[in-house]
């Protein structure tokens, strides 16, 4: 509306100016899509074509090169992947163990630390700096750092154990202990993220409900459980979703510490690492694409479940 008014009031100049004016008029009228479209087209092009191609590849037996002679095999790859109890299902299990374990630890610890930091205190600044550092550290460098600390022979972790009198552990190089150790590394790096998000939520809460409950005689646990936590619900969900997506897709620290295939026994191979290995270490594009399509569907399904259940509860 305002656009029209300005267009008319100054639009009586030479024809050149009118052309410019018309142009600006048009731009202002369509600014919604003029602004939004470039970013959307950029993302859509980078996603849509590759995704369609990945879906197509998953229906073929392409190997070696994407443009090699290949046959359309329908859902044979999917059948093969579903029957693959050697690599696919263990990788799936590891993905969920890793994600749920790390996520649970991060939420509990993150909530604990956020509550400790909630009320202002002296030296708060330093604690905040300390929790910010792991968060911004480059994951590959973090992986290398923990590789040295957890080295069975020269690492500090085993040295620490020997001081306390405990036996040395294989940590990252153990077949059973690799995944829990990597979960620990993930918790170390990403708990601060949860702390920051929850802390932002906590500081945005008003004091009144808490005070009211206190006056009514609720103890601190009750106040946390029945007052603070329900008020914080949406923040907790945001933290869970943001962190959950990234945890499912964890690649950097796994690949940096365990290398191809998640170690010699595939002990740290998640779906993402498996798909990467199939694509770029073995060039088995058909199967790789199948795994990726399934992986993507799982992420979408989880996302949908979380947001859908949230909407149900709200309405």
């Amino acid at each position: 509306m305002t656009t029209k008014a300005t267009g008319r009031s100054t639009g009586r100049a030479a024809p050149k100016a009118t052309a410019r004016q018309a142009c600006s008029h048009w731009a202002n009228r369509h600014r919604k899509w003029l602004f939004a479209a470039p970013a959307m087209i950029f993302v859509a092009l980078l996603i849509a074509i590759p995704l369609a191609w990945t879906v197509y590849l998953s229906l073929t037996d392409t190997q070696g090169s994407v443009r090699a002679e290949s046959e359309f095999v329908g859902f044979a790859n999917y059948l093969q992947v579903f029957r693959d109890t050697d690599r696919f299902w263990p990788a799936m299990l590891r993905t969920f163990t890793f994600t749920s374990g790390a996520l649970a630890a991060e939420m509990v610890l993150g909530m604990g630390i956020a509550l400790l930091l909630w009320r202002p205190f002296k030296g708060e600044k330093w604690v905040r700096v300390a929790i910010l550092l792991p968060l911004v550290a480059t994951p590959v460098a973090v992986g290398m750092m923990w590789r040295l600390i957890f080295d069975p022979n020269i690492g500090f972790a085993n040295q620490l154990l020997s001081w306390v009198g405990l036996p040395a552990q294989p940590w990252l190089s153990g077949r059973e202990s690799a995944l829990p150790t990597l979960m620990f590394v993930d918790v170390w790096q990403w708990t601060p993220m949860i702390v920051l998000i929850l802390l932002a939520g906590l500081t945005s809460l008003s004091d009144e409900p808490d005070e009211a409950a206190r006056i009514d005689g609720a103890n601190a646990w009750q106040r946390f459980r029945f007052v603070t936590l329900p008020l914080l619900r949406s923040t907790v969900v945001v933290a869970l979703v943001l962190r959950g997506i990234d945890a499912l897709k964890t690649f950097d620290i796994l690949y940096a510490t365990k290398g191809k295939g998640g170690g010699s026994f595939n002990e740290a191979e998640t779906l993402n690492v498996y798909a990467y290995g199939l694509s770029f270490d073995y060039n088995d594009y058909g199967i790789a694409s199948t795994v990726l399509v399934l992986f993507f569907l799982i992420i979408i399904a989880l996302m949908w479940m979380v947001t859908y259940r949230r909407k149900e509860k709200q309405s």
Partner: protein
Amino acid sequence: MTDTVTSKARPESPLLESTVPNSPSPRRPRKPRAYPIFRVVCLTLTVLLFIAPLVWMLVASFKTNVDINDSGKTFIFTPTLDNYANVLSRNNYFGFIFNSFWVALWSTVLSLLLGVPAAYAMSRFTMRRSAMVVLMARIIPGVSLLVPWYFIFANLRLVGGFGVLVLSHMFVALPLIVYIMMSFFDSLPTELEDAAQVDGLTPIGAFRRITLPLSVPGIATASILSFIFSWNNFMFALVLSGANTKTLPVAIFNFVSYASIDWGSLMAAAIIVTLPIMVIALFTQKYVVSGLTAGATKG
């Protein structure tokens, strides 16, 4: 070990605090001694747990490999700069630093150009569905795009150049910027824009002259985070970078493919990649935190 300590923190602190539920001034319980001490202990442990590994990495980067292998020299040793000299001079790390910086810079600048107007439109016209299109980039696993990207870009003879790296890192930066800027614009009142339009500016003019200058804090937040995430990105560069465009994380990863690991130099390299980003984060702490927590409180 420390995990259990901190997780116990919650159930215990309440009991201590709740000894005086009916106290007239609830902020000052009569027996306040135990909780503050408990809190200090827990926070100290937390800080130690988060900082100690980083300190360890820093310390190891000043040790010779002989000292790293010697458990008697855990804390007492003669510091050396050899590792840094080795990494910087013999392994061409200055080149990798430049590559990382260049890619992070351009992907951030270009993503801002695309992302800020998009976030503005999506916020002002509540285009949630369109926003989802952009945010899809954050959800989708990067590997599923890499195979097609690699072959499309290889056919265009782009693999190994800066362009394709910038493009792939924009894919990380753009959703981040849109997400942060959307929540920034959501919280920015529209009154000033409206007033500017009443005074004769076009909507785009109002955006350019009023909203953009007001958005400097939001744009700073978005750029810093986008720079950090691009700097830290590993997977895209691992596949798409060439010998001349290798970024720091890839360079560090290649360090360990040799038979025996040169731990001292590896730690020096790890410090070289993390230190700049940590310094940036420390000086811009406020922005980093507000970016990481963007959109978290409005539900």
